[in-house]
Structures are given as structure tokens and as C-alpha cells.
């Protein structure tokens, strides 16, 4: 009796604390975005681009879609690296996936064209 009670309560305890699968997975986003924020040199840009590609291609989150902002910031980093066409294409992917982004993506496209 004791044993059953103990096991069932332990199971309940563990179940109540488990963290569910996250909505999105982000790979090495934090450290690579920090390095880019800090240095913006060729190495940190390349590493951040790899992180974005990884998030996009190997997304393992429960929603199964690219997280908010990733296409957009990836596009922005490409624009900064003078990859204009590729960058714009990414910005438009963000709008397609997250229509709420249209308002500021339009603004950034305007800034680029100035």
C-alpha cells in the first residue's frame, strides 16, 4: 500500500513539474546574437547567419514553424552585409508568416530605399 501510494504520488509530482516542449527552439541564438550586437564583425555576422539558418531548417518547437522575428532579423543582417535581394526576400517571408510584422517591415524597406 505504502509503495503504491509513494510511487503514484512521485509520478504525479514529476508530471506536475515537467516543462512542456517549447513553442520554438533557438539553437545558439543568445550567444551569437550577443556577439553580433557587441562586435558586428565578419566572424560574428557569419555565426549569427548560421544560427538563423539552423533555427529555420532544424526547427524542433511544438508549433513547427519559424519563431517570430527570425526571418526578419535574418533578412536585416543580410541587408547589412549588402545581400540586398536575399535580405528583402527574408523580410517578405516574415510578413507572410506573421502579418502583424507588415507595419514595421514596410518601414524598414523604406529606410533601405532612401
Amino acid at each position: 500500500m505504502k509503495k503504491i501510494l509513494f510511487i503514484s504520488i512521485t509520478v504525479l509530482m514529476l508530471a506536475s513539474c515537467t516543462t512542456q516542449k517549447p513553442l520554438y527552439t533557438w539553437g545558439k541564438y543568445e550567444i551569437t546574437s550577443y556577439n553580433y550586437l557587441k562586435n558586428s564583425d565578419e566572424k560574428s555576422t557569419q555565426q549569427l547567419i548560421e544560427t538563423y539558418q539552423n533555427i529555420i531548417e532544424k526547427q524542433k518547437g511544438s508549433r513547427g514553424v519559424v519563431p517570430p522575428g527570425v526571418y526578419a532579423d535574418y533578412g536585416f543582417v543580410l541587408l547589412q552585409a549588402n545581400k540586398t535581394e536575399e535580405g528583402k526576400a527574408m523580410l517578405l517571408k516574415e510578413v507572410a508568416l506573421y502579418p502583424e510584422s507588415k507595419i514595421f517591415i514596410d518601414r524598414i524597406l523604406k529606410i533601405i530605399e532612401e
Partner: protein
Amino acid sequence: MKNILFIIVVAFLSSCTTTAPIAKSVAYKGIYDEKPLTVLLMPPINRSTNVEAKEYFHSTLNIPIANSGFYVIPTFLSMEILKKESAYDAELFLNSPLTKFGEVFGADLAVFTIIHKWDKSGLAAKVYVQVEYIIKSTKTNEVVYTRTGDVTYDASVSTGVGGAWGALADIAASAINTAATKYVDVARACNAYTFKDLPAGKYSPIYGTDGEQLAGKKIFKVRLNSKYR
């Protein structure tokens, strides 16, 4: 027998508790009323003596908020626009109307982060952070969420070897852990811990159904390490 049951029940309760017994729908009423989707991260306000602290927080804020189900406006893009609009200093907007951010970004919420303290202690590899989070509605300018944490982050990596040699090995292992990686993780842990009780956003499967869950303490003290997720 009764005693065992009692101990187990206590263990069960303490394993997940937040002690403040307020439901999230009450503590964060504005969020449940307004049903915001889009979140703008304001550049963190750094009042600590460590100039680097701002960037540590800036690069780690979006993940916990996006993973709660909100649309977080991409950081590098928003930085660029804020700079162009001469609005990069978040301090200026802490107590002023935020409607402009709604117009320019379509933001429903603005997240302010104030780093009050960021102190390191040498050999023990501990970082002590005091950080305040304020989320305001761009529509009503009301504070819809705020928490302040006193966080002690233990960056020492235990080698699992006991005794004096073990202690030396631990110090060496901590030093190898590069500074930037370590400090980015300090900010990550602070953000992850704080936003655990953020109401679920529209992209979350539990959106609109988590109001009965309990909100965390408004002012909290916690010890964290790199394993905290």
C-alpha cells in the same frame, strides 16, 4: 503512515509553488483584458556599474517572451528603427505616452528592463543581479506586468570531485567557461525565471486558459545557475 502522507503532500506542494496566491488573471488583468499580440523590447536601461549588462539582457529577452506565445518584434530591426526615430534611450519613455510605438511598430506592449545591480564576486564565481521588468500597454500606458528580482547566479561548474583537489578543479573549470558565454547565461536565467508566469500569448496552445494559474511574487529572491531552464 499519516506522517509519510503529510511529508509527501508538503514536498508535492513545495516542488512547484509560487507563494503569492494571486491568480494571473488578477495580477496581470490588463493583459487578459487587452489580449495583446505584439511586443516591443525597449533597449534595457542600465543603472548598474557594469556597462556590458545592457547587451547581456538585450540579446536574451526575446526567447522567453516569444516562447510564451507573443509576437516579439525582431531586436536588430527594432533597434535600427528606434535609432532612426531618436528613441533609442528607453529611459525617456519610462513615464511618457507610448502610443507612438503602437503607430510605428504595431506594438501592443512595451517591455522595459531596468538593471539596478550587476556585481561579480571573484573566486566564488557568483554574479548578483537586481533587475526590474515593467511591461506597459501602448494603448492605456498602464503597467500590465511588473516583477523585480534579486538573483544570485552561481557560475561555478562542479566537477563532482570532492575535497581540496575537487575545489581547485572546480575553480579551473569555472575559469574555462568564457566570460561572455557565462554572463549572457546570467541574463538568460534571470529572464527565463521571471517570465515563467507571463500569461500565454496568442500563439500558445494554452492561450486564454491559463488565468487561473498563480502569478509569481512581484518582488522575489532566487538562486539560479546554468542548468535553470
